[in-house]
């Protein structure tokens, strides 16, 4: 049985320090929902409030219609996976997975059957009788996942479950997690600081900073139409240029680096004002015909196989990063003058300070 989670005006304080000032959130049934943000943004704190390991200083937490603020963590029916796996070192793999089932006083046969089922699900059947110290990190994490899921929890909570694994295993395990979550259809709240990981596994992501949710959306929405400059810079790489929004009769656009760039998706209500323009490295086009809108000099290039990265100094002195698909024999020499086009439909414009997007509308999810 899966549930939806509603958080209304949550407050978290440690003494006088406010970690989360006022946070509301709706997590849908069966959804893979990720809390993403830099360390110290309050994402783990929020997760632990849902789990019941952190006290709640204000607001209401609901599982479906049940308020859980004062419910004992042992009774919330939550499956939790921890960053350090938190495998019980004095029990076998089977003992770990069966632990939650024994606490529920299930009949022996059912415990056995369910333990087997979930060990099989995470492909750990052959290690069932091993002690945890003889397992690798990835295997321990699989056991932790099986242990959390075996109790048929209403919610699966995962706190940076992959951050202790090496890069290759991280990619492999996130596929495993995603696949199992989809098969079971359990509401999942996942915490990570790794935006690529978040993009890879999530249905929706909440980007957090300073205890405040900056934006909630699908990976595509966050990347393509970030609602503020923080999200734009935190998700993926981007170049931020200072500019000005101009209006000239029906025409509107932005002025950056001495160039006038007309745009057709700016917020109708936004008047002329200073702006911050976010242009991702792949939203530039280097042209050799001199028909671009900006001019610059290549300072450095890095060939990375599929793509080549260029560091370009604009005429006004600003340095930008550009990514182009590599093709045979075309790496542009250092010191070469280049002309740059911009894919204006993709770039994002924010009011000065970066808090408000001046782009009209978003992308469908």
């Amino acid at each position: 049985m899966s549930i939806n989670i509603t958080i209304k005006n949550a407050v978290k304080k440690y003494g006088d320090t406010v970690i989360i000032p006022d946070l509301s959130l709706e997590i849908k049934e069966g959804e893979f929902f990720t809390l993403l943000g830099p360390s110290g943004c309050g994402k783990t704190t929020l997760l632990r409030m849902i789990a019941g390991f952190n006290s709640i200083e204000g607001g209401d937490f609901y599982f479906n219609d049940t308020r859980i603020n004062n419910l004992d963590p042992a009774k919330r029916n939550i499956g939790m996976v921890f960053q350090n796996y938190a495998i019980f070192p004095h029990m076998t793999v089977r003992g770990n997975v069966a632990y939650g089932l024994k606490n529920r006083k299930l009949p022996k046969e059912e415990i056995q059957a369910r333990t087997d089922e979930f060990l099989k699900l995470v492909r750990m059947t052959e290690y069932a009788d091993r002690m945890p110290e003889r397992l690798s990190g990835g295997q321990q994490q699989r056991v932790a996942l099986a242990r959390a899921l075996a109790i048929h929890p209403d919610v699966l909570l995962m706190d940076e479950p992959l951050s202790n694994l090496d890069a290759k295993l991280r990619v492999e395990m996130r596929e495993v997690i995603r696949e199992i979550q989809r098969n079971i259809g359990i509401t999942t709240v996942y915490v990570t600081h790794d935006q690529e990981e978040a993009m890879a596994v999530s249905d929706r992501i909440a980007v957090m900073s300073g205890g405040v949710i900056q934006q909630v959306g699908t990976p595509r929405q966050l990347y393509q139409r970030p609602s503020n400059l923080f999200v734009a810079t935190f998700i993926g790489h981007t170049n931020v240029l200072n500019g000005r929004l101009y209006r000239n009769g029906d025409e509107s656009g932005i002025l950056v680096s001495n160039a006038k760039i007309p745009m057709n998706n700016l917020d109708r209500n936004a008047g002329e004002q200073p702006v911050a323009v976010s242009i991702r490295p792949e939203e530039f086009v280097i042209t050799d015909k001199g028909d671009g809108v900006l001019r610059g000099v290549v300072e450095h290039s890095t060939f990375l196989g599929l793509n080549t990265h260029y560091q370009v100094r604009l005429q006004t002195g600003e340095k930008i990063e550009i990514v182009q698909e590599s093709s045979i024999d075309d790496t542009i020499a250092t010191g070469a003058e280049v002309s740059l086009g911009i894919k204006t439909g993709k770039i994002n414009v924010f009011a000065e300070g970066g808090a408000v997007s001046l782009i009209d509308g978003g992308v469908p999810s």
Partner: protein
Amino acid sequence: MTEIRRRPLDLWQAVSIAIMLIYVLFLIIPLFSILKESVVTPDGEFSLQYFAKFFGEAYYLRTILNSFKQSLATTFFALLIGTPLAYLNSFFEIRGRSVMQILIVISSMSAPFVGAYSWILLLGRSGLITKFMWDVFRIEMPDIYGFGGVVLVLTLQLYPLVFMYVSGALKNIDNSLIEASQNLGVGPFKRFFQIIMPLSLTSILASAMLVFRRALADFGTPLLIGEGYRTFPVEIYKQYVGESSQNHSFAAAISVIAILITTIVFAVQKIASNKFSYKINALYSIERKKAKGLLNAVIHLYSYLVVLIGIMPQVYLIYCSFRKTNAFGNFVDGYSLDSYKRAWSFVRTALPNTLMIGGIAIATVVLLSILIAYLVVRRPNALNNIIDTTSMLPYIIPGSVVGIALVITFSSGPMILTGTIAIMIIAMCIRRIPYTIRSSVAILQQIPITTEEASISLGASKLKTFFKITTPMMASGIVSGAILSWVTILTELSASIMLYSAKSQTLTLSVYVFISRGTDGAACAVATILTAFTVLSLAIFMKVSGKRDIIL
């Protein structure tokens, strides 16, 4: 919308309160009793006359001076012997190293007064070596009694602490530090003084402080071998037991002064250890090299000599236990098991007593330590912080003072415990509990809290989590610590000598009683049994913990 409430009653708060009550009853009240006793005259009036007496007479002041003299000298010699031994043992291959290490540990584990007694048998007025030297060479050996003897015995008893601490520190110096200094062109001599010395200084200081405190509080050695050389723990005992006249109030006053002194020493140690501490950890320990030629011979000679002299008292006692004795228990030529037969009447009650007192005390200490560690680490609050501080109090209270405090408190009033086995158990618990708590706290701090949270999220209650997850994870570390506590309880004298009765005699006390009666053979026999138990316990410790080094 429905709401589910958490139960308001928390079991752990009840545990906190229970533990606090135990401390109040068996530690705080006894300490206050001793303080009260020291400032109240038999007529029930407040008076500082006992303190005035202590500070007014040169004789009593000298006991403190003597204690410091004995501790300083012991610390100096223990460092002088133990530090080089640790360095040599860590940097050079020495044949039979593991046997050597075990012998060093064993020599530190016997009761100090047993060592003193053995040295009297060897070097005393009618000692083996004394007689031999006189008969054969007409050489008069220097007097073993007094200051020299005390320092000799304590040094040989306590140098193993220096050895173990410094060896531990050297083990944590990463070989790459040596290689880096080599790489930077620093020769072996300079390297020793610039890298190795500073990095092991913390441990040298820590061990020096420990040796100092042990020597300061030791009671059996100066009692036995000191003769006219009186130290304050002996003075407390003499005043309390009173060969000529008993003076409980005066004993209490000296106890209060003793606590003040040990508190100052403890504070100095704290400050020093905070100032000079590095955190180092080695991935690869320094490799031992094989020394060549003369150096190799000197290294081996030195190491073997120190270890052999250290273990000699115990070996000699074992030997003596099999010698024939006359009707008075004095040695005559030939061998027999008479001493064991003679000792049997004592051992018959002392052995079960020892096992019972030690067993119950250890079980209590372990249980309380686990609970207190959990409260302190996982549930810090005002009350638990007070418990934490209180539980460290026994660190600074000399054993004999623990004994007197308990006697004063529980010889009258609603709870009369004097002469019972219970009061012995309480004393042992008080003496050992700070050590076990410290190690339990350290172990629990290593266990990530998420392991317990995982258990709770899987539906286990907090109590169930504590018993099923926390306790088993702490167990192995605590059990090995408990075995070491067990050994020290086996050989405890200073508190138990104040508390024992015919009913609650222990093996260690039996040795003491036999010695004071002059029945040498039986004393040796019981000491041998005690050594056997110690060695057995150490063997179990090594088996359980899988390690060879022991830090008490």
